[in-house]
Structures are given as structure tokens and as C-alpha cells.
């Protein structure tokens, strides 16, 4: 596969060098500007131009524990639906999830961009007995502020960090904020590794240019990424094909963790519809929403899909996530716990 070294890409609204991001529309349109994605006409993938400094093993106990779990069975990760900036909600959701999942992802939300800062949020969660995987985006902080958060996350003892470029501020509930994008996922990964943290990154197999996505994963691995968390990309066979293609591109298997969407109500289905390049298995959401008891059926279809994914070749685990309407955070955390427990999480 041909590729080029990193070049400046001033026209990308997220100032990315190692694009394209996962937000490219099905028609090749940019997720931010009313124009085609600037990376599509270029030779891809953009090669990682780092210096090859040896990357460190995780220095947190929780990070080592996650690797031990992965050595004996697939990893089961859950989202964390707590209301933003609410210590009480963190406590209640943690209580619902404790013991049922291997680790809990505290990520970004388009409906609530303002959250407690990553290390503080992780500290509150860890104090409630959760193994925390912290989402860190490049939209809101420059490299100095990000380095401090990474150092603080290590001090808190998180299991790992999910390094993402992040959605543009143009989407979500804070369009007035300045988009920072001093770094991007690919350049954040080695910094996280140097901070002694286990890393993950996102990839969207269904986003154009589909045939270059596996090679992009390989470049992120070269930059310091360990686990590849997949955006919803269709059927189990699609995930298997992507895992095989990434292994071929990287020259070795890459631990791939596909997402399992948990939908228990219409609000959650609407949230899912907002995700760029998300492709769900045929009839997945309809089956839940048409059910007499969407909550029961939502859990059921998530367990079914998760079980099939965990049995698929090249799959190292799953990330079960989703959302529910305001005020339903704890109920949703309980539903997440049911799914992750059924899938073997926390064992």
C-alpha cells in the first residue's frame, strides 16, 4: 500500500496531519465544513513520522490488571452514563456497575461537552471501586494541558486512556468554544505511553475511505496505540474482516474491541443516530423500539450481539455503551451492568 509521510494540512478544520478522521460522511464530505474531506484525494495512509523511541509498558496497577485479563479472556468494557459534573450520579452509577465490568470508559458526550476534567472524574470513579479507562480528547486542551492530565491520570492509577482527536466544537452543545486541536489522536498516543499509560484509540471501519482504514490503524499502533476500539460497523462478519485487514496492515494482530450499542429507549436510539459513520446490524434498533418492553429486549439483543462478537476471530473484547434520557442514568447503568456481566465482565 502506498503512503506518504506527515504533511501539514491547514485546510482540515481539526488541523489534523494524520487524517482522515472518523467523521467523513458517506459522500466523502467533511464532518465540519461543507466541503469534501481534504484527505481523500491524498495518498493514504499518512505514515507515522515519530522517532521510534521505545514505548513504555503501563505503570499503573489497573493497566497491568487489564493486560492480565486480556491474556486469559476477552476484555469487557462498559460506558459510564453518569450525569455530568455530579458526584452523586458518579457514586450511584458506580454502585450499579461495580463488579460487573472489567473497566469503565469515561468519555465525551455531544449532549454534555462540559464534564469534570478527566483526572478528577477518574479519581471520583476510582474512589468508588471502578477500574477506569479515561477518554481524553484534543479539542479542549493544548499539549501542555493534555500532558498534565495524562500525568494526573497516571497518578490516579487509571487502567488506560482512550486517545481521540475529538469531535469538532461545531457539533454538540458548545459550538461557541474555540476548537483547540493542537494535537490529534495519533500524536497524543505516544505522549500517553510515555506517561506510563495503557492506550486505546478509535477507528471507524465504515467511514470513507474504507479501504485505507486498516492501514490507518497500523499507523496508530506504530505511534503508540495498543487497543483499537471500533465504531459500530455493521455485522459480525464486517468486524472480522476489519480485524483481519488490520492484522495484515500492521504485520501482527491488533487487539480490536468492537462496540456493542445498548439501546433501551427512544432517547438512546436518537443518541445513536447522531454518531458519525455508525452502522448497526440490520434491524437492531427497530427490534428494541418495537418491543413491548424495550428495556428487556434492549439488554437481550446487546447480549446476543456481544456474545457473537466475543466469539469472532480477531476480537479481543467489546465496549458496551449507549445512553438514555436525562434522569435515567442509574437505570441505564444497571442495564449496562446486566449486559457486561452476561458477557463475562468482572469475572
Amino acid at each position: 500500500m502506498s503512503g506518504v509521510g506527515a504533511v501539514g494540512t491547514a485546510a482540515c478544520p481539526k488541523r489534523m496531519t494524520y487524517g482522515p478522521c472518523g467523521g467523513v460522511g458517506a459522500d466523502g464530505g467533511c464532518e465540519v465544513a461543507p466541503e469534501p474531506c481534504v484527505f481523500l484525494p491524498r495518498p493514504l495512509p499518512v505514515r507515522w513520522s515519530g522517532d521510534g523511541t521505545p514505548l513504555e509498558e503501563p505503570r499503573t496497577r489497573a493497566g497491568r490488571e487489564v493486560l492480565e485479563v486480556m491474556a486469559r479472556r476477552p476484555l469487557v468494557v462498559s460506558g459510564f452514563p453518569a450525569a455530568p459534573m455530579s458526584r452523586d450520579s458518579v457514586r450511584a452509577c458506580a454502585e450499579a456497575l461495580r463488579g460487573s465490568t472489567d473497566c469503565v470508559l469515561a468519555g465525551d458526550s455531544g449532549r454534555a461537552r462540559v464534564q469534570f476534567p478527566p483526572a478528577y472524574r477518574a479519581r471520583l470513579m476510582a474512589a468508588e471501586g471502578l477500574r477506569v479507562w479515561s477518554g481524553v480528547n484534543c479539542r479542549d486542551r493544548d499539549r501542555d494541558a493534555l500532558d498534565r492530565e495524562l500525568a494526573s491520570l497516571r497518578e490516579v492509577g487509571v487502567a488506560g486512556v482512550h486517545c481521540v482527536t475529538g469531535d469538532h466544537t461545531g457539533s454538540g452543545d458548545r459550538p461557541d468554544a474555540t476548537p483547540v486541536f493542537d494535537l490529534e489522536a495519533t500524536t497524543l498516543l505516544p505522549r500517553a505511553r510515555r506517561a506510563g499509560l495503557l492506550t486505546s484509540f478509535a477507528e471507524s471501519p465504515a467511514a470513507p475511505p474504507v479501504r485505507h482504514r486498516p492501514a490507518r490503524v497500523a499507523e496508530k499502533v506504530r505511534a503508540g496505540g495498543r487497543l483499537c476500539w471500533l465504531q459500530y460497523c455493521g455485522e459480525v462478519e464486517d468486524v472480522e474482516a476489519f480485524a483481519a485487514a488490520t492484522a495484515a496492515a500492521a504485520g501482527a494482530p491488533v487487539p480490536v474491541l468492537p462496540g456493542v450499542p445498548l439501546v433501551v429507549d427512544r432517547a438512546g436510539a436518537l443518541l445513536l443516530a447522531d454518531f458519525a459513520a455508525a452502522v448497526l446490524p440490520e434491524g437492531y434498533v427497530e427490534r428494541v423500539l418495537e418491543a413491548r418492553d424495550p428495556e428487556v429486549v434492549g439488554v437481550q439483543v446487546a447480549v446476543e450481539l456481544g456474545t457473537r462478537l466475543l466469539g469472532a476471530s480477531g476480537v479481543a473484547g467489546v465496549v458496551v455503551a449507549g445512553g438514555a434520557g436525562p434522569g435515567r442514568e442509574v437505570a441505564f447503568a444497571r442495564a449496562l451492568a446486566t449486559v457486561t456481566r452476561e458477557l463475562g465482565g468482572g469475572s
Partner: protein
Amino acid sequence: MPTWPLRGDAPVEDRLRPGSRRPRAAALAGALAEGRPPAPAVLLGDGPPPTGPTVVLRAAEAREAGEDVWCRIAVHDRNRVAVEGDLAALADLDVAAVVVDADPPPGRVLDLAPIEVARLATYAGLVVLVAGPVGEPERWRRAGACGLLVGTPDRPRAVAL
């Protein structure tokens, strides 16, 4: 690096959850209003990159140790989403005050002017102390600032604005 834009008094859009003052902040505000010396506090800021840690994490540890904390809040390396998250965390921790630099160092991100940070912090229930040259005290008072940071970094003091 670019420097701070000059901004007027246009109100910031206050979208943080409005907070009422928690005990440590209320005690400091009361002392400043009545001209009493405030309780001694440690002055914390972000650690130097790349090893940090963040001021919020330092504040969490100091509060856990039972200390009164004043936190210098950085605005030149993060946007308003991050600043608002920091303020919410500091309010959650019941830090006694946040210190806003009237003339912050230039940085990569110029999203919020210092006076806007003061308004947001006040809105979140925090007591604001201003550090550095306060050209127009009335503007800062309108933004909710209560006091001026004086003294030395290891012996910080506050006086009413």
C-alpha cells in the same frame, strides 16, 4: 505566540450549573466583606508540563488533607469547555477561592478573557481573587470578583477588592 484579545464587558453565556457557595468559599467571602483576615490557605496551580499534575488534582489531594485551598486557574492552554469543567470540579471540592490572573501569559488558546473566567467562576459559586494589575476594579467587581491576591506565593493573603 498570540496575546490576549481585549474584550469588553459583554456578558458571557453562563451555562454552567449555577452554584451556591459552599462552606469554605462562604467563609472567605464573609471575611473579605467584613474586613477580617481570611483563614490561612495554600495557593495551588498547575504543575509544569509534562509531569503536572493538574491544579484540580492537587486541590483534591489538599482538600482531602483538610487544607483550605486557593487555586490559580489557567486559561491560556484550554478552551472554555475545559475551563468550565475545572471550575465545576473546584466548586465540587469546596476550594475557598480561585485566583484569576488579570494579565495571564500568552498561550496557544485564547478563548476566554480573564474577566469572563471571573464571571463563570462566580456563577459556579466560587470566590474570585484577582492577581496582578487590576486596572478597573469596578469591572472586576461587576464580574463578581471579591478580593485581590497579595502576599507571597508561599504566604498568600487576600484583601477586599
